[in-house]
């Protein structure tokens, strides 16, 4: 039951994009097509889980025992950056079709706050490994959901008559605001 609640909470109530404002750049940025959004979202899901796993072990067996909690930020970003590069090389050699599909998104993952944000959040919340991974899955699924919804909306926005000053980013932001307002309604689901 609690697992289910964690899931609902992370996907809808505390959606990582719409309530926690992580991963704004890809959300508002280049992705206007649902297919592309799906690719980017998929890459984020994969790396959030991987990064959470790696950083959880780093924290548990390296930072906490030596009292180096204050080095968390620098250690995590180093781990994430090298993980991304490693996976990029691995995919290129071992699974070329997957690389062809996700390759262009990989360099963007390093600077995606959602990946780093989830890794830090589960440490701050002091989740155990299982809960951390569950949270990573749920939070990145929430990211994927928001990204795809936004891409779908923006495909429609392209053919709408928008006041000239509103075109581009402003209307996208206002759309995001309305979406966030809609997602606020899920708050009632968690007592």
């Amino acid at each position, binding site marked *: 039951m609690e697992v289910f609640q964690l899931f609902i909470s992370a996907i809808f109530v505390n959606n990582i994009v*719409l*309530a*926690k*404002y*992580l*991963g*704004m*750049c890809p959300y*508002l*940025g*280049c992705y206007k097509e649902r297919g592309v959004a799906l690719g980017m979202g998929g890459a984020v899901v994969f790396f959030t889980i991987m990064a959470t796993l790696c950083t959880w072990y780093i924290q548990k067996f390296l930072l906490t025992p030596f009292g180096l909690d*204050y*080095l*968390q*930020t*620098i250690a*995590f*970003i*180093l781990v994430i*950056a*090298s993980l991304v*590069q490693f996976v990029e090389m691995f995919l290129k050699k071992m699974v070329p079709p997957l690389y062809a599909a996700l390759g*262009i*998104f990989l*360099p*963007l993952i*390093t*600077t*995606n*706050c959602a990946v*780093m*944000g989830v890794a*830090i*959040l589960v440490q*701050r919340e002091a989740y155990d490994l299982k809960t951390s991974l569950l949270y990573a899955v749920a939070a990145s699924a929430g990211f994927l959901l928001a990204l795809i919804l936004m891409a779908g909306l923006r495909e429609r926005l392209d053919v709408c008559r928008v*006041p*000239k*000053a*509103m*075109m*581009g*980013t*402003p*209307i*996208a*932001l*206002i759309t*995001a*605001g*309305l979406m*966030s*307002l809609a997602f*606020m309604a899920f708050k009632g689901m968690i007592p």
Partner: protein
Amino acid sequence: MQPFLKEFTKGLWKELPPFRLVLGLCPVLAVTKSADNGLGMGAAVIFVLTLSNLIISLVRHIIPKKVRIACFIAISATLVVAVELLMQAYAYPLYQQLGIFVPLIVVNCLILGRAEAFAAKNPVPLAIADGLGMGMGFAMSLTFIGGLRELLGAGTLFGKYIMWEGFQPFAVMVEAPGAFLCLGLILCAMNAFNHWQARRKGQDAPENPMPGCESCRACSHGK
């Protein structure tokens, strides 16, 4: 002095980071519940951006091209940890308020973007000017949005109540949707102003700025 000033002032209006370049939006939306928070975050970004520009510009000749991004990340992460420690020591309530967004400065596209696009190619004084200007522009914008949201959402500014008696605050402005709506309307007003200015000068209306990978340049994606 001339180029120094030019690099400094471009960040204040012409290339104002969150509004003109539409860069580094996560903290712009997340920490601007009040003017105080916006200013605090802005100060942290000024610190990190100026110093990272300085250091990267200093060592730009000895960094191998292949691990360029990794080195930039390591340098800015060090500065971010320093900010974290200083903030905990001297401004703990602010640290609690900003929460996870202090460590996340390290993945702010603004830092890496300026490192890659400017500091890695320019001499030290110019890099400092660029970092200071961009940082100040960022802090200014954050404080402005924070002030606006605080004023409309709670009727206060920097914690002091200044609206008239019986003012009904728009609670939504300090909630998550308010951040999006507020930034959207500000950008819209800026575009309208640009269009008006261009029309007055008799030019064609300029393009609205788009959030795009092009302005970040942290990777080859936007090439």
